[in-house]
């Protein structure tokens, strides 16, 4: 490089202020002495000025970063991307597994649910005992069940199980509090009303005993606050009721006719016996479980024979303890807080709950069907007969008078408390037709029927039709007569004894007299 070219290059660095102090001093000396260098310096300054001002900034790119990070993301190694999406990938993977499992085994969830249900049911099924043993049922209880569809859940009748059909003919059952009934000897009254002789009494006893045994496994209870009701129980009630009434008809047709409603034509009772036999042959494992917090149905195999064996052993063990057989102090409690949940969970069962009772309405359930002729008409007839008998024999309500209303209360039955307000009601006609009215109440023949807020107690004005006939107080008179007869018999025996004693005494006195003589 020539000296001149070297200086030109230094000029370029000079205007860029990139020379060392010595270079700068030397160059400035040279510039002063050289016109050519001065000219070149001017040119270079001009060019630098031009280039420095030539530039216009490139407009900003608003999506630069977005694009960049998207590219970076796509350039990341696959394992880093997988790591980032691992939660979603995990979820997707799980979904795929579930789909595959469901595809190959579509019943898996149902089975799991079923399994879970069985587990829960297992808890409630523990140590189930027949109600008959727990509540110590007797013939009277079974008679009341047949006629009035009520079974005591405990010995003291603190709670009763009531099964029935609603207006639409759907089955329901309810557990409600009852009061001890001291004076109800319905079965005895029934026998008296029909004037049964000794042979007939034995016959009806055997009928009752047979049903008592069969009924044992129909209602089971346990300490876990569970009531298990066999779906055949409704049929049992009908069968026992019909059997009893058929027997009544057979043994005393005239008395029985008084119980049968006039308007219903009724022929004979043979099909009732047939129905009962068929019902016995209908084995049914489906139980409806009512527990503290749920209602469900579940088939169980209850081995009555095995249970009886255990019971026999238990009896032996307890022999020394005054035959104290009552193991269970059963009192059902329902958790009303869970009612809403239950309504949703069990579409087939609707639970109605108030402070007095817990009613389970069964909308959809496969009840064992009884097939026999004229079933529906018989059903109506027998229920009417049972109601008639109930009223005439024992069903006298407690009557309370208030300033503006009269209240009828049937013990232990919140459904059967009725109120009538005076101003809406002709009291004379009420008193005159009180008995018809009661039957009307039972057949739910109401105008303006409505409920109280908390309870299922009805309030309204009944229609005073006289659908059912009644006969006044004959049973009571007969009972009194029977009592009188027994007392007279006793008196007669006593008199006879006294007579004989007297005779004996007088004879001995005479002997003494004679001997004295």
């Amino acid at each position, binding site marked *: 490089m020539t000296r001149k070219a070297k200086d030109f290059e230094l000029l370029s*660095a000079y205007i860029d202020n*990139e020379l060392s102090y010595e270079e700068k001093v030397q160059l400035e000396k040279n510039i002063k002495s050289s016109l050519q260098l001065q000219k070149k310096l001017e040119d*270079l300054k001009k060019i*630098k000025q031009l280039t420095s001002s030539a*530039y216009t900034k490139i407009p900003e*790119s608003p999506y630069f*970063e977005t694009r*960049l990070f998207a*590219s970076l993301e796509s*350039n990341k190694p696959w394992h880093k991307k997988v790591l980032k999406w691992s939660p979603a990938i995990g979820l997707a993977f799980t979904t795929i597994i579930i789909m595959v499992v469901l595809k190959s085994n579509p019943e898996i969830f149902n089975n799991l649910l079923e399994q879970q249900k069985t587990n829960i049911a297992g808890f409630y099924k523990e140590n189930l005992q027949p109600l008959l043993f727990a509540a110590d049922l007797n013939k009277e209880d079974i008679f009341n069940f047949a006629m009035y569809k009520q079974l005591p859940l405990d010995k003291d009748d603190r709670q009763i199980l009531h099964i029935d059909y609603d207006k639409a003919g759907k089955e329901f059952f309810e557990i409600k509090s009852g009061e001890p009934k001291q004076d109800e000897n319905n079965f005895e009254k029934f026998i008296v009303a029909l004037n049964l002789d000794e042979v007939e009494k034995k016959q009806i006893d055997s009928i009752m005993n047979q049903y008592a045994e069969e009924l044992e496994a129909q209602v089971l209870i346990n300490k876990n606050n569970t009531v298990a009701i066999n779906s055949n129980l409704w049929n049992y009630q009908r069968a026992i009721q019909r059997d009893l009434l058929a027997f009544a008809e057979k043994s005393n047709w005239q008395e029985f006719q008084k119980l049968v409603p006039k308007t219903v034509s009724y022929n004979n009772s043979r099909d009732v016996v047939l129905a009962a036999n068929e019902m016995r042959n209908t084995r049914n494992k489906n139980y409806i479980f009512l527990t503290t917090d749920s209602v469900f149905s579940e088939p169980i195999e209850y081995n009555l024979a095995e249970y009886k064996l255990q019971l026999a052993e238990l009896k032996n063990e307890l022999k020394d303890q005054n035959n104290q057989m009552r193991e269970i102090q059963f009192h059902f409690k329902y958790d009303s807080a869970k009612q809403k949940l239950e309504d949703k969970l069990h579409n087939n069962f609707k639970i109605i709950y108030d402070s007095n009772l817990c009613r389970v309405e069964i909308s959809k359930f496969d009840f064992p069907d009884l097939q026999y002729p004229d079933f529906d008409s018989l059903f109506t007839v027998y229920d009417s007969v049972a109601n008639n008998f109930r009223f005439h024999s024992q069903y006298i309500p407690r009557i309370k008078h208030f300033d503006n209303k009269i209240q009828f209360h049937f013990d232990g039955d919140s459904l059967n408390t009725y109120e009538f307000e005076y101003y809406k009601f002709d009291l004379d006609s009420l008193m005159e037709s009180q008995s018809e009215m009661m039957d009307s109440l039972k057949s739910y023949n109401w105008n303006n029927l409505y409920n109280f807020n908390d309870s299922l107690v009805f309030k309204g004005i009944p229609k005073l039709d006289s659908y059912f006939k009644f006969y006044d107080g004959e049973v009571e008179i007969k009972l009194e007569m029977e009592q009188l007869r027994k007392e007279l018999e006793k008196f007669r025996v006593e008199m006879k004894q006294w007579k004989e004693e007297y005779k004996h005494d007088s004879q001995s006195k005479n002997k003494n007299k004679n001997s004295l003589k």
Partner: protein
Amino acid sequence: MDLNKENSELPQPQILKLDDDFSLVKRFIDGDESTFRLLVQRHKEKVRNIIYLTLGDSDAVDDIAQEVFITVYKNLKNFRFESLFTTWLYRITVNKCKDHLRKKNVRRIFVPIKEASGELNNDLITEKSDISKIVMAAILKLPQKLKTPLLLKDIEGFSYQEIAETMECEIGTVKSRIFRAREGLKKILQPIEAELME
């Protein structure tokens, strides 16, 4: 007492800024990849401008700038802190521009010679467009190795040292190339010198 007084009057050590380039790079290396976004935000416009100046082609700027930052992202963990982060960044930028031009030159073989000629386009001048544009067009006609140091110096205000590091060459080379660039530019602009000097 005197000593204490003296100490209190001493300038207190300056607290390091944790968002300086080195700190951000260090945090990135330590695993905090969020700092990369800060680096991008801080330097993207400079990078884009260098590319624009070097290529004179605004269409390719963003694509190449993306490539630059992707390269930075991939190699940042290997950064040795021996030079400024910016020097390293601009070096990558310049190299990316070179790559781009190399590819473009290969393509140029297949286009008519006239388009690829080093002469200043007469249309540009006859249209009497803005002087800046004319000068810019002239600069772009310079060979790449002359053009880049000139632009880094006159437009970006780099020192010769920085240019040397960016271009991975000697300071003397930078000095020489900038002079030659200015000489070349003068030659290109000679036909319109009179107009420019007005």
